[in-house]
């Protein structure tokens, strides 16, 4: 118990150093695509739903910044956001926009669950809080709950597309800001 506190102290954090960086990068990638995706979704929403999309868009930007700082603190180069992301389905109306927001949150919750699988207790707790936050947002969009958020993630499905869409990627226009974050 009292034998080697010094070596024990740093062991858990060091043990999953590369794994922690990989999990943080995966969470960052999910946040970056959420920031982009909410820009698309927000453009197709109005009223309270648009307000919720803007709130979540800002929250994901803050989360992205926090993860970027955590990676930098570990001496890792945070992966840059892409200029555009392929959407899971075409978004031409509010139903598809809500389905997209739901899918984004499902993916974010799955990414943060990766942090919960690390041995560092601080990152585990951080990940668990983030999984909960994303699951709450997903449930708010979906109007119902999942048994295993982040773990059993439903296949992205557009809520009943009226006609097969022409384009697969909608133009990004984040609410309140003209362009998604450029790479680099």
């Amino acid at each position, binding site marked *: 118990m009292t034998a080697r506190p010094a070596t024990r102290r740093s062991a858990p954090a060091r043990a999953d150093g590369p794994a922690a960086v990989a999990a943080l990068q995966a969470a960052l990638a999910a946040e970056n695509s959420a920031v982009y995706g909410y820009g698309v979704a927000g453009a197709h929403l109005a009223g309270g739903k648009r307000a919720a999309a803007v709130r979540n868009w800002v929250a994901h930007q803050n989360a992205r910044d926090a993860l970027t700082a955590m990676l930098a603190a570990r001496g890792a180069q945070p992966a840059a956001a892409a200029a555009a992301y392929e959407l899971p389905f075409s978004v031409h109306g509010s139903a598809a926009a809500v389905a997209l927001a739901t899918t984004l949150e499902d993916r974010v919750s799955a990414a943060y669950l990766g942090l*919960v699988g*690390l041995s560092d207790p601080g990152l585990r*707790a951080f990940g*668990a809080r983030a*999984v*909960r936050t994303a699951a709450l947002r997903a449930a708010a969009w979906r109007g119902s*709950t999942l*048994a295993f958020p*982040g*773990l059993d993630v439903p296949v992205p499905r557009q809520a009943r597309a009226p006609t097969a869409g022409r384009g697969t990627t909608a133009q990004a226009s984040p609410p309140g800001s003209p362009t998604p974050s450029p790479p680099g």
Partner: protein
Amino acid sequence: MARDATRRRVLAIGAVTLPLAVAGCKGLGALGTPPKPAPGVAIVSHAITVETRLIAHYGAVLAAMPALAGTLRPLLAHHHDHLARLRARLIIPPGSRAPDLASSAASPSSSRSPRAVPGTPAAALGYLRDAENAAADAQLAHLAAAPPSLAQLLASISASEATHAMILGQVRHR
């Protein structure tokens, strides 16, 4: 107090009978070093107790207010899913009495223990919302000590319960 003691005894009996059942196949020599339960076993048992209690709360509310079934059944179904996923993590030797860990923890405590269900639908929904929030926190109590995949399962179940609490808070009761 007394309830805790009962549960502890049940757990203790499980801890004793499990190695004995395993050792039975190898003869007396095997008794020298009783196998230690895997580190996650106690944590899974705790999580199972939390789920079982929650299911008992739902059962009490549904019995008192069948009109809430439409709202509550989908949430209750998730808790049965949680319970099944947790139980699947416990490998119990055949013939051992340990598989009833959860139900024996449930029957003496949960069936009698839940506070009386409030008399109105609104209050009953609030009662379940509080129970869900408490469970969501309880499932994270041993997060740091759990093996990685169990930690992920517990975090997911906890998040599910937090969403249940949110939905219960939004229900418009007529």
